[in-house]
């Protein structure tokens, strides 16, 4: 053990870094995904007010699901990757909603 203090410290730092990364992914990444959901819901075929409210209602479910995913994923990197993949269709839907509501 005593011959490898550097590696132990580095391994500790790595573990803490990965944990901080996951916490950031859960708190901030999760919120971003939830916020994107509330924007993507505007693409649903309903009037604007209903779309706005549907997005709000769904966002918390997505947030909770995102946090669970982040901590269930095998590594912090995979956690972030999963969030990004989930964000893709939401970004597309938000962009579509934008052209729907503001066609110029």
């Amino acid at each position, binding site marked *: *053990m*005593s011959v490898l203090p550097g590696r*132990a410290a580095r*391994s*500790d730092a790595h573990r803490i870094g990965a944990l901080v990364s996951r916490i950031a992914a859960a708190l901030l990444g999760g919120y971003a995904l*939830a*916020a994107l959901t*509330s*924007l993507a*819901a*505007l693409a649903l075929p*309903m*009037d*604007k*007010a*209903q*779309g*706005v*409210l*549907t*997005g*709000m*209602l769904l*966002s*918390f*479910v997505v*947030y*909770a*699901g995102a*946090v*669970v995913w982040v*901590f*269930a994923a*095998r*590594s912090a990197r995979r956690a972030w990757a999963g969030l990004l993949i989930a964000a893709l269709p939401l970004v597309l839907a938000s962009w579509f*909603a*934008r052209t729907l*509501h503001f066609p110029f």
Partner: protein
Amino acid sequence: MPKPLPVPAKAPGLRQTMSDLHTWTGLLLGWFLYAMFLTGTVSYFKDELSQWSRPELTRQIALPDPAAAAQRVADALAQIAPGSSQWGMRMPDARSNTVSSFWRTAPGQPGQRGFAQGNFDPVTGAAVTSRATQGGEFFFRFHFQFHYLPAIWGRWLAGLAGMFMLVAIVSGVITHKKIFVDFFTFRGGKGQRSWLDAHNALSVFGLPFHLMITYTGLVTLMALYMPWGQQAAIQTAAEKRQLSSELSVFIPPGKASGQPAALAPVDAMVRQAQAVWGPHNIGGVTITHPGDAAARVSVARGSAERVSMSPQYMLFEGSTGKLLETHDRVGPAAETRGVLYALHLGRFSDLSLRWLYFIVSLAGTAMVGTGLVMWTVKRRAKLADPDRPYFGFWLVERLNIAAIAGLSIAMAGFLWANRLLPAQLPQRADWEIHAFFAVWALALLHALVRPARRAWVEQLWLAAAVLALTPVLNALTTDRPLWRSLAEGDWVFAGMDLALWAFAAVHAALALRTLRHRARAPARAARLNARAGEAA
């Protein structure tokens, strides 16, 4: 010698990671969640607590007719606030004995942020005066925005805690292999096992409720937490009005015409609404620009007989009393939100359902409490020296004492302040709240300086004592002691006294258990030693 690093052979399984997630989301904001749960639970009896806090006001014997009461209060407001751009009144129901009312004040007039408020007797229309207090309203507001910090910050903090709770519930469910079996499992008197079983039973018994109350709590403030869709899509004034009419009965005052016109009889308008919604199913009346030709009167439906808070009201022209519009339909998403909102508040409940709400919500409070305690029970066994725990353990243990036992004392302290503070004290209502926090701070101080187990026992006994003595204090300081309220069938006051004794008994039982637990541990160790000696 340095401890060898634990090298995981493979990544921990889903159940383990979810268990860790459950532990830490539950702990980090657990003290806030416990306080939110308990003050939210008592808020199911908010109106009753408010009645108890104003013992000067006479008990309501018969339910007043909303139409007649609205007319009387409108007449009174015409004297008190003639030039106001808006009057609002909440009609009395079986749970409240006054018409609570607010009105807009012109800039420069007294009143909080452009509003003034008062209570009126529904039978005489006279303004009623009582000791200044927030009553049950304080616990209600505290449970979603706390105190001493800007309301918006408090609501964000409550939202964060709510989100942690939602994650703790979902990860807790994933952690449980045997969620159904666990409900029927209780292994008493076995330390950590018993705490785990109690936590499981409390959680599983109320699981649908806990999940519902947490999610719907977030829904009540969702426009604050998730404003992005609204900001992107709702731009014009017309769109804003349309969205607002999907969410709230509140109508903005708009512009006065400048043409004076007498207000048509309000009672006739309320009667039209009664014909549709039932004689006692009127929630409130709002009048904008009374005395002006552009006056509008909206009469809102009460919360009984439907599980939704979606806005339903009739809009009348103030000068003629002509029905302009019946707003009784909102879009599907707005109706969903209305139902979720109503489920959280439970205002539609009759008395038995309200008690059920109260009891399951108490189970939720106990779920958070047992979870907090379990964090320390689980780790105490592994402490090298239980008398000198590491800082994190010490802190959690002390915060648990103040947050759980201390909160009960503080809440009782609020009730005592309500009875003991002089009626003429300036800012009296604020002082009741300061008393609550001062008592709570003292409880925290006590928890920090006393040995942990003794602090638990002392605070639980103190809570039992002040709770048990509150009915005595009530008998000494008001003319509504228990024997009188029982004889007169005054169930708000009698129920409060009896409930306080029930809570006192719960605290005494917990104090006794904690005390006995302490006495038994060394005895068991001695027995084990003796047996070990025999075996040798």
